[in-house]
């Protein structure tokens, strides 16, 4: 009868959303598992290397970034690996920081996160500070080198 009257039945225009919650939960679990607080968020271009080993979690971080303005001094920040990084202005402060960490844990690992364009003398000063503080293991943070590099 409906056809005679010229009425057509409307097709259902619904999107099936019942599995959406499952997908959302899956993503949620992924992000919770991989969640890691980055203790130093200084943006920089890390050097590329072929050899890379995993840096230990909770290792102390010393970041050396070039300044935005060429006349400004370098930005050196230190973090215990558990708290957000704080800026330091002198090498003596790095020695004090590293000595305190080594006194707390003699096997404490240190990560040097430095921009590839930083003059080596600044990295040398940090390395010297770590040696003075009797640090045993150091990691130089890098990106993976690829063939096109």
């Amino acid at each position, binding site marked *: 009868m409906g056809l005679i009257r010229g009425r057509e039945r409307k097709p259902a225009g619904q999107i099936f959303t019942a599995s959406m919650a499952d997908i*959302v939960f899956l993503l949620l679990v992924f992000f919770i598992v991989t969640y890691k607080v980055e203790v130093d968020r200084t943006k920089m271009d890390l*050097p590329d290397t*072929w050899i890379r080993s995993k840096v230990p979690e909770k290792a102390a971080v010393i970041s050396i970034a070039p300044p935005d303005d060429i006349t400004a001094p370098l930005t050196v920040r230190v973090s215990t690996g558990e708290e957000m990084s704080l800026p330091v202005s002198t090498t003596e402060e790095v020695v004090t920081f590293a000595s305190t960490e080594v006194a707390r844990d003699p096997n404490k690992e240190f*990560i040097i996160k430095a921009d590839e364009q930083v003059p*080596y003398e600044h990295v040398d000063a940090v390395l010297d500070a770590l040696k003075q503080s009797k640090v045993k293991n150091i*990691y*130089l943070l*890098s*990106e993976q080198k690829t063939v096109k590099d």
Partner: protein
Amino acid sequence: MRIKKKEVQSEIFTGSMADISFLLIIFFMITSAFSADRGLDFALPEDTDTPEIKQEDSIDVHVLRGGAIEIDGNGTPLEGLLPYVLDKLKQNPEKPVILRTDPDATYGDMIRAFDTLRTARIEWTDADGQPLHMDVHGKPLTDIQTISIPTRREIENLWSMLGIQ
């Protein structure tokens, strides 16, 4: 007359669960950082009284400003570093490599040389990890035993000890 008992609904309302999950996802997506968590590792000597190394007993790699390198005083391209070291270690596998860097060179220049030295264990072994080279005593040579990165202060101390200005 029979009185109908009204059934108590025992469902948990889950309609807003997806909204909460989305909110949490957005939070974790924004705050989580896929940061670099790998790098070159090296161990520092335990005591400061390290034995004095004579220049002829070691391989001196000097990274100059601009990234050029000098090995034992001779300018060499970076590709020539490992073959030179291999040749020397075949004679004496315990020979340490000393990596010095000019203060005006960049950190990236130093890392390139250091990374090249660290690739020795890949270059000197085949796909199964078998050694490709032997030293003069017939023992397999698979890696550089010691790579030392002295600081400027240490080099100056050594020079003053040797009476070099």
